[in-house]
């Protein structure tokens, strides 16, 4: 009996000390960071300015009409010599403890990205609170702290809005190369592959004047738009790819889930047809002949016809259907060529990962070219082969034609 009592006392004691008294943090003492922005404090100063959107739970959790006018986040920033110090300095202003586990986006200002982001990666990958599955983003022609001021009309929390924007872009548009911190670090460490991340732009929406009426308008002056891809060479950003070029990279890297493509109308000039790509498979291969590497990109895309701007019945004429399939393939091919030109001539950055393919498929050749891969990549001949197929034509079996019954 004495033994049982002694054990009971020990276990009660253990349960008291083992629940984490030292690491105990009550939820009401935490400041949940949802998006973080990284810039230099100013052009002449080294160090980091860390801006953070901190969620105001007491605003989100209310349904009082007056509170809907209040922004559901608090934007604050702190400077430091390192990201870690800046993070600690956030506490000088925040009465709650900055909590990183729910951060979903790391936004980097263009200027900072061009100088190199390596110095912040240590903080975001080493700290146990931060997670590798946060989105890495770069703001075009602006500072990250400016972007953190922007909001969405349809989503009160910008972090959630941005999350859904990126998700939609990845699933339905494919005009950017999205990248999580994990992907970025992987690309940075992988030989023959340069990192690429989604580029954001701040969209100005100046107020259109007072709106009379019963409904109060919560005006959003600055919003956010996805605008292509930021391309890096090692950890330094070297330039941008526009929407088409970004999609070109996405085709080759097999990142397209669904997207819409405009092709010429099957019968009428100056008119167009919209195709929705429902399935696409991209593959990159590198061959070596006489010691010289060359690459091949193969894409197979299946699409549905979703729109014709002028009446036509292409499914009645197989040749027209086939012509549209060729146009689909041609359009994809052209986007890949545009992306290749941008990567090889303008940016000199192998965002496709041809070097990585070469290293894996022909390691002995890679050993010879790895030191000068950036130059080799510029001259790398790339053959693009695309197969397009159109399967469905939506709910219509023929096009709507004005005055057809007459």
């Amino acid at each position: 009996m004495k033994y049982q009592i002694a054990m009971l006392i020990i276990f009660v004691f253990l349960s008291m000390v083992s629940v984490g008294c030292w690491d105990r943090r009550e939820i009401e003492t935490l400041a949940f960071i949802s998006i973080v922005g990284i810039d230099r404090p100013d052009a002449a100063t080294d160090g980091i300015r860390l801006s953070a959107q901190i969620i105001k739970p007491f605003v989100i959790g209310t349904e009082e009409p007056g509170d809907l006018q209040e922004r559901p986040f608090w934007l604050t920033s702190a400077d430091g010599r390192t990201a870690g110090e800046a993070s600690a300095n956030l506490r000088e202003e925040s009465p709650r403890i900055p909590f990183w586990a729910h951060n979903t986006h790391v936004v980097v200002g263009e200027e900072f990205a061009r100088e190199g982001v390596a110095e912040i990666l240590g903080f975001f990958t080493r700290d146990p609170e931060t997670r590798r599955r946060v989105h890495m983003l770069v703001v075009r022609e602006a500072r990250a702290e400016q972007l953190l001021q922007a909001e969405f009309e349809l989503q009160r929390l910008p972090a959630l809005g941005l999350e859904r924007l990126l998700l939609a872009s990845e699933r339905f548009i494919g005009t950017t190369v999205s990248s999580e911190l994990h992907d970025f670090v992987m690309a940075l460490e992988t030989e023959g592959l340069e990192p690429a991340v989604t580029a954001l732009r701040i969209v100005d929406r100046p107020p259109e004047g007072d709106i009379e009426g019963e409904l109060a308008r919560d005006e959003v002056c600055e919003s956010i738009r996805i605008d292509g891809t930021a391309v890096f060479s090692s950890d330094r950003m070297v330039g941008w790819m526009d929407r088409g070029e970004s999609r070109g990279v996405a085709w080759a890297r097999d990142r397209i889930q669904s997207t819409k493509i405009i092709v010429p109308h099957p019968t009428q000039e100056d008119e167009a047809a919209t195709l929705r790509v429902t399935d696409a498979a991209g593959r990159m291969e590198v061959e070596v002949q006489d010691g010289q590497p060359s690459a091949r990109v193969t894409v197979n895309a299946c699409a549905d016809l979703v729109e014709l701007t002028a009446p036509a019945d292409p499914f009645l004429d197989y040749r027209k259907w086939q012509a549209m399939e060729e146009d689909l393939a041609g359009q994809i091919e052209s986007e890949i060529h545009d992306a290749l030109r941008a990567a090889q001539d303008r940016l000199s950055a192998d965002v496709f990962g041809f070097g990585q393919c070469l290293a894996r498929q022909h390691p002995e050749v890679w050993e010879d070219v790895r030191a000068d891969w950036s130059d080799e990549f510029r001259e790398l001949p790339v053959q693009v082969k695309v197969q397009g197929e159109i399967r469905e034509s939506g709910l219509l079996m023929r096009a709507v034609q004005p005055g057809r019954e007459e």
Partner: protein
Amino acid sequence: MNSPTREQISPYQMLALMFFTRLASRTLICPTTMTSPPTRDLWIADAVSAAVAVIFVVAVCRLGEKYPDRSIIQYAGDLLGGPVRVGIGITLAAYFLFVGAYSARMLGEAFTMSIMPHTPLTVFIAGITLLAANAARGGLEIIARAGELLFPIILALLLLLLILPFDQVDPTRFLPLLPNGLAEVIPATTIEFMFYLEFIVLGLLIPHLRAPEKATRFAVIFTAANGLFMTIMCLIMVGIFGPTLDALGLQAFLLARMVRVGEFFERVESVLLASWVLSTGVKISLMIWGFCTCLQQIGGLVRWRHLSYPVGVLLTASSLLLFTDVANMARLLAEPWTLVSITSVLVLTALLWGGHILRSRGENER
């Protein structure tokens, strides 16, 4: 002869104990990556070490089958004489103490590194060791029953953790395969094999087995299955983390953090934390039991259970004092300890086999 020898465990319980012994050291801090082979080939080290471990396990179990009622220490005395028996007993006791100490330290460091950075290491180490010592005090049957109960649960949870992030595996990250030949993975294979030597505890378990004659069969099947499991886990980690794998302190923990299903099912690392506590708890209790059994059999003690708490205190102190920090522990395990443990355990096994062969020849000649 004494209470431990009267305890009996089933082959399934033995498998569970072997599973926890191996799991605890593979999913916590992994010193293997310190040898810096190309990380994409680390899975080969897992596969090869398991294959070599099968040979080691056969050597230990076959010997045990020949002396089904005697533990490794007892038949060491029969084969090689009293002083060698004491030497082997002390070596094994020290070995179990060290294995228990680094297992407890790994758990403490893993918790401090991952979720509770401000909590002193002592709390984790002393806490888990106290629980383990309490289980060990209950005897082998208690430990085995705990292992038996937890084995399917933890295995299912781990399988889930391996399946859920599978969509992020990029098979091209395994290429090129062994560009500089197999020699490159030898250091990593050696370290992985060093952990398999913990199966020397089978030498103490076999006399307690309900069917000692089946020990080899079960142990071989399980070591191979274990090796397969570890290889698949390593393949998944290489496929996800690629060249960055060797930079990660807690690979299995970060693997669990990569789980995201349907934009809502994520943050499942607590599952891994639970499996760490349970598997390390079972392993440490087995090591404490092993240590106590060694002392009992060297000293001819009638009772050993009262030793478990003092041994727990000794293990806690060793765990705290033997290593200065996590990097020091990983280095110590990767280099000197690998050499010392492989040498001592293999020499010990070879000595016993030598003694057995000589004795068999002598008996045949007679």
